[in-house]
């Protein structure tokens, strides 16, 4: 199916960049403010669904490649399980980067503070992986249901 009229296309292309940036913000600050991987991934998937409805299916397929979404989803789930395996010296899903001084490892005093993004260990990496997986998975569902049952060739 083709997209909607010219007014809808112009207004929708104004909303896409702030929507994607807001979704990335919610994913990245998951250990400081309410949010996290699942919530931010849904925001990104909703913005891509707006893009699909306004511009039609053919332009969407040309912009985002044929197998890009499926590959992204599988790689993100694989990365999530890989991060969980990296802490296997103590246990599965061990948080080996928190309070350690390396990549995300600064300690936090008890009590109310402003929040330091360098702080929570493995949790921001896991948020990132889960955000990509949820966003691409929901976009695949939306594309599959939008195109109907296609033509059986």
């Amino acid at each position, binding site marked *: 199916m083709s997209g909607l009229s010219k007014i809808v296309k112009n207004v929708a292309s104004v909303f896409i960049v702030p929507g994607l940036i807001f979704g990335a913000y919610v994913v990245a600050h998951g250990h400081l403010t309410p949010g996290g991987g699942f919530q931010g991934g849904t925001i990104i998937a909703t913005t891509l669904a707006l893009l699909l409805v306004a511009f039609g299916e053919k332009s969407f397929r040309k912009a985002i490649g044929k197998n890009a979404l499926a590959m992204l*989803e599988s790689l993100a789930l694989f990365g999530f399980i890989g991060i969980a395996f990296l802490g296997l010296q103590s246990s599965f899903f061990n948080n080996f980067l928190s309070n350690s001084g390396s990549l995300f490892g600064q300690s936090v005093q008890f009590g109310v503070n402003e929040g330091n993004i360098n702080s929570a260990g493995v*949790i921001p990496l896991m948020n990132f992986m889960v955000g990509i997986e949820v966003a691409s998975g929901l976009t695949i569902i939306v594309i599959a249901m939008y195109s109907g049952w296609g033509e059986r060739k």
Partner: protein
Amino acid sequence: MKQAIKLIFFLVFSLFLLASVFTLRPFGAPKHHEMDSYFLENGQRETASNNIVTSIVFDYRGLDTLGEATVLFSAVSGVALLFRGALK
């Protein structure tokens, strides 16, 4: 006959729901909270994150999140399998 069975079942179930609303524990006073008190007192020191809910989801109970990601992945692959003609 079938309409009568449906109606009786619906009435019995909604009476059960209404009776349970007025006999539950009072709202705002949870009784067993030893696990949550441990999370609130020690969660920020052990996992170094300000958001306790995220540290429960990804650190203390990470296996549940792994199961949930698997459920989402299998649902997406099931939908892509059913609509095979559209995604060619």
